[in-house]
């Protein structure tokens, strides 16, 4: 058995060391612009991973200090506390996503009141951003992107569709499904999926067996799209039952090139990471800030354009 007292001394020493190191960095970096991201998406999510890559690249290129924070589960109370804590540390700029206005309005308003400039990315939308005193909104309106996807399918004359959602309860994915149904103009059932690729694939197979008249499958992210492609392959329906997805991955782009998938919808979320860092740097140095919102998506990547972005997707930029 080990004794706690024996451990306590070196631990305290270490702690003191860290504190001094932290203090030293703060002093050295007094002039460096410091931007903090607090979002609802973990950097482990393939979508948010690209946002963080954009942030990291901008920070490196511009010599800006940038940090990325997100609660490890979809926990709005915790995210609100994180915003409060970051606001108290007085960064030069804060970038937030607002997937739940009721839970996050107060922390964001308080941060603005404390003099922190705030840019909202991904979720929240333009109106809410300006109501809360944010500078501008950047991102893809998920519902509107879904509407545009639905309209594209309606033009093809397909009416029997399903929305394969690998993470039901995630509001932006739910918005994508809901927008799709609106754009298509008919009821679209939601197939509840999972993150496990084998179970996801087999659920799509099961769904297609029970609903053989389905003409189009919309996946709402790479984690749903790749198993959907595998399922259609196994059923011998690849290319016959049409499918499309939100977000990109190398596998998705290859499928688009091969004609197995209609399109991938790119939110160009790399820009949501990169541009706010650059904007806050300009804001701190010269008080320059764009005066209008910045929609980054939806960009439809089709057979004509997919091949050219596969390499970029492998690098985590698209």
């Amino acid at each position, binding site marked *: *058995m080990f004794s706690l007292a024996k451990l306590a001394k070196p631990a305290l020493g270490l702690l003191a060391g860290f504190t001094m190191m932290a203090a030293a960095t703060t002093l050295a970096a007094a002039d460096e612009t410091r931007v903090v991201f607090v979002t609802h998406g973990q*950097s*482990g*999510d*393939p979508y948010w*991973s*690209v946002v*963080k*890559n954009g942030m990291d690249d901008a920070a490196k290129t511009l010599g800006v200090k940038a940090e990325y924070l997100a609660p490890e589960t979809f926990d709005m109370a915790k995210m609100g506390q994180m915003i409060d804590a970051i606001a108290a540390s007085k960064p030069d700029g804060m970038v937030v996503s607002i997937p739940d206005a009721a839970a996050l309005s107060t922390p964001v308003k308080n941060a603005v009141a404390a003099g922190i400039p705030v840019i909202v990315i991904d979720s929240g939308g333009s109106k809410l951003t300006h109501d809360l005193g944010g500078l501008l909104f950047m991102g893809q309106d998920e519902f509107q992107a879904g509407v545009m996807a639905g309209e594209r399918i309606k033009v093809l004359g397909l009416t029997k569709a399903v929305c394969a959602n690998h993470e*039901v309860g995630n509001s932006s994915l739910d918005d994508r499904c809901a927008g799709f149904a609106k754009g298509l103009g008919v009821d679209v059932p*939601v*197939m*509840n999926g999972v*993150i*496990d*690729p*084998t*179970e996801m*694939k*087999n*659920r799509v*197979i*099961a*769904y297609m*067996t*029970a609903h053989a008249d389905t003409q189009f499958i919309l996946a709402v992210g*790479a*984690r749903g799209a*790749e*198993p959907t492609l*595998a399922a259609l392959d196994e*059923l*011998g*329906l690849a290319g*016959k039952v049409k499918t499309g997805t939100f977000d990109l*991955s*190398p*596998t998705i782009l290859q499928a688009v090139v091969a004609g197995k998938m209609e399109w991938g919808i790119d939110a160009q979320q790399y820009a949501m990471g990169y541009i706010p860092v650059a904007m806050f740097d300009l804001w701190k140095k010269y008080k320059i800030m764009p005066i209008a919102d910045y929609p980054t998506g939806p960009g439809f990547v089709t057979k004509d354009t997919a091949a050219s972005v596969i390499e970029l997707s*492998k*690098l*985590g930029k698209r």
Partner: protein
Amino acid sequence: MVSEIRDERVRSVSRLSRLLSRPELGAAAGTVLVFVFFAITAGGTGLFSAKGIINFLEVSAQLGILAAPVALLMIAGEFDLSVGSMIGFAGILIAIPAVFWGWPIWLSLLFTFAVCGGIGALNGLAVVRTGLPSFIVTLGSLFMLRGLTLGLTRGISGRTQVSGVHELAQNDPLNSLFSGQVFSGLIAWLSNIGLIGKRADGLPSISGIPVSIVWWIVLTLACTWLLTRSRFGNWIFAAGGEANAARNLGVPVARTKITLFVMTALAAALFAAIQVLVTGSADTLRGTQKEFEAIIAVVIGGTLLTGGYGSAIGAMFGALIFGVVQMGIFYTGIDTDWFKLFMGAMMVIAVLFNSYVRNRAMRSR
């Protein structure tokens, strides 16, 4: 006559009641119940077609591969909550050297099994040395492994999913061991004589039996043999029943437990190898919640949460119930928003039925 003289301490037990007192009996009964339920609600929808059967067996098999060694560990009185994140970690360990460093697949597979086995041994050592509950120790490794996986993957690839394994694995000697199919010839023949349906394009609805199902059966049989026919099996029961008494009798309790932690870690690596080679990609979130699903399967299978009693065959039935319920709901046409409610209820009913049957069997002895 000599044969008529009987020791009065030995009670004669009929073959039937011996069968009824086996831990897997309740699980087998639960399995029958679940199959009957789906035969009634989804009988004509294709759940019990060749494609449908392979569909749920594949899900059951992957969980079952995990559940068999987890059952042994739980019988020995310990938990391993790290198996879920071990799956994600192992997948990345396979994919990154292959995709980014140009290692052949067989080498990165061997490397992965070695590293995961080592971490399993560390888990075991930490449990037996500190005396902390394994629930806490492996809860710590659950988080550490997830963080390590994410940090490594993002640091090396800039993404959280690594794809491109399919192309690299095509001519690898170990590829068909994890992602292949068996009995393809038999399936084609069965399809020709009309016993197995065809797809729209004329090919058989299934092209073979996924090799993961073979792994599942072999692993379950191996664990069953280990548990019931080997000295190591006696050690497992002894360690989980009364560890101190076992130690006094000379059972190497610490060594037994460490070995079992290595086995669960290796099973997680096997799960990952199968999933990475079948899907062609690795993902930092793979295996999320598999630790709980494995424990559920083991408990449905009649193993006690407190240790000392259980079976690997039972875990097989548990995984089978899980797979059938998971997939069966999609064939019933029930609105999938109610999916988890339904699944949870089926689980509880299966376990209740399981323990009811077992109690009846024990009482009748």
